């Protein structure tokens, strides 16, 4: 089989066969992942129709990462991420309507139509944004950790980032200070194998990205299979507990794969990765592998799955209809939100 995947450096090879867990929890995990999948597929459609503009980066294939990690958080914890942020926003509890309206550039979007695909924000869920400059948000996460510690709180912040971030200075500066000052931050590398079209092994002078943690005393480096939502849950739960109770940062590398292009303008396969490689990873689909395992273990029936699909489809269609009906921001909004008026 023609493949460009480098197996030598992969500790966590995806496996197609999954274990099952608590049926109710499994159903929640499945629902969370499926919502992201169907939502993102709809986003792809809307983009093709011109309802969504600009850069748009789909999360399809990586759903187990957001679902598994955010499920371990409390409502008063914080989440921050990159421009590939739709999935995390949904899992964190930002309403599908508000995310879709933001993508459509409408007033009811979670950032009032001023952020767009790359800048989802929601104060109510402590969702501190999608950020568009690679690596730039990693120090922000350390800053939130600093604020938590400053106030003596026991919250944590999870910082999602792509694999290309580990090569930029901001990442190292932030990890150094997070370790030095023992900040309650979980840094999550979503290693989907490519920084845009450049494979990890052509960009990082380290075989195993979690080893970047070795440079910072007290920081654990962990690798986990990102196609296995249970494994993600377990690894995240441990790292988050360490952050919460010991105020110690961790670097969690989640081996995942993006089934779509880097952005909407990027072909799914061709120039930098082969169809065979894509097909192989799609066989490890985090959603369908869990579904199959559940059906096999009789913790879910096919009818229940179909009902879940229908429920999610209805939610996504409702988000679309809502976004489509939401007005565009009025011209007066142009000059709003540049500065706040109040002075404390």
């Amino acid at each position: 089989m023609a493949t460009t995947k480098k197996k030598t450096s992969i500790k966590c090879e995806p496996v197609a066969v999954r274990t099952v867990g608590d049926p109710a929890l499994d159903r929640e995990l499945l629902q969370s992942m499926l919502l992201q999948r169907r939502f993102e597929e709809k986003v792809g459609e809307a983009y093709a129709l011109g309802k969504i503009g600009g850069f748009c980066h789909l999360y399809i294939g990586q759903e187990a990462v957001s679902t598994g990690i955010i499920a371990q958080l409390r409502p008063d914890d914080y989440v921050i991420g990159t421009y590939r942020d739709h999935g995390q926003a949904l899992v964190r509890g930002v309403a599908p309507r508000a995310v879709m309206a933001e993508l459509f550039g409408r007033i009811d979007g979670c950032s009032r139509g001023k952020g767009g695909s790359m800048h989802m924000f929601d104060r109510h869920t402590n969702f501190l944004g999608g950020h568009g400059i690679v690596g730039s948000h990693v120090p922000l996460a350390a800053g939130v950790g600093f604020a938590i510690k400053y106030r003596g709180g026991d919250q944590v912040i999870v910082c999602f980032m792509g694999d290309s971030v580990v090569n930029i200075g901001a990442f190292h500066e932030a990890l150094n200070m997070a370790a030095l000052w023992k900040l309650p931050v979980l840094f999550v590398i979503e290693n989907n194998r490519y920084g845009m079209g450049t494979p990890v092994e052509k960009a990082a002078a380290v075989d195993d990205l979690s080893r970047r943690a070795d440079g910072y005393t007290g920081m654990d480096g962990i690798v986990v299979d990102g196609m296995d939502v249970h494994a993600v849950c377990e690894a995240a739960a441990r790292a988050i507990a360490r952050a919460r109770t010991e105020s110690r940062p961790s670097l969690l590398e989640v081996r995942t794969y993006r089934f779509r292009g880097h952005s909407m303008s990027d072909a799914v396969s061709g120039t930098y990765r082969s169809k065979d490689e894509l097909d192989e990873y799609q066989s490890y689909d985090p959603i369908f592998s869990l579904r199959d395992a559940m059906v096999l273990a009789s913790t879910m029936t096919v009818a229940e799955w179909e009902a879940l699909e229908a429920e999610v489809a209805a939610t996504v269609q409702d988000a679309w209809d809502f976004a489509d009906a939401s007005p565009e921001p009025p011209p007066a909004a142009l000059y709003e939100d540049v500065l706040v008026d109040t002075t404390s």
Partner: protein
Amino acid sequence: MPIITYREALNQALREEMARDDRVYIMGEEVGVYNGAYKVTKGLLEEFGENRVVDSPIAELGFAGIGVGSAMAGLRPVIEFMTWNFALLAIDQVVNSAAKMLYMSGGQFNVPIVFRGPNGAALQLGAQHSQAFESWLAHIPGIKVVSPGTPYDAKGLLKSAIRDDNPVVVLEGEMLYNTKGEVPDHEYLIPLGKADRKRTGTDCSIITSGKMALVAMQVADLLAKEDIHIDVIDLLTIRPMDVEAIYESVRKTQRAVVLEEGWEVCGIGAQVVDYIQRECFDHLDAPVLRVHQADVPMPYAKGLEKIAKPDVAKTIAAVKQVMYRT
């Protein structure tokens, strides 16, 4: 009224605001044990402890970002850059994070942060340590930029900057820390966005800010002896700029010189001249002239450095030119 240094005035502002609001903390290189590279934070570690006076590694991008993140989570950081020259490493956090967060979040996340430190050329520090960044920073919507020239202004503006709910850049004059001036005992604030008339005159306006305000005042005092009376408008805040103060002065004097420390091209002076030509065109009796640094990286050699910098003589020459005197 007590006479204190610019450095002491800034120190008082920090101390008072930290005592007033426990969300205010200071972070930067050498701000704690070392008392600050320029001693602006002297004694603060002792008074407020290491939780609130935080010595950072030399990592401008990192600690500027930590400041922004902590502000999003409710703190009110004062980030000290050892000099603004080093802050270029952190400009992404100033421009892409601090300045844009409120807007791109649709008004949900404001960033109450102060970025402060010495700006502009000192003496023979060479090209990389001798730059004035007013125009770089004032270009950006979403932040405020202040540039105090006197101890009084430094204290009042820094206090207001710390209390402001927006990102505020405070450009301190590297050559000003030892300069002295009157600063009252009682608490006061200087509102951001308001200029200050430092000298009153009817013959020509000089519009300026920061260290150059001192040059403008010297020019005004010298020219007064020649019966030329200068209206010195010290902008104090460069963004948002007090354009009404500029218009009022220029409509009165009908002549103007814009004096700035930085380079000419796309400088603050270019913006001021644009405001003047738009709003005071019919009042002008002469083209508006600009005085600024020579359009070169700052040389080390003493003589070259002197002729590269804007100064009293160059400003007097410009004033005389707009007054058609020789």
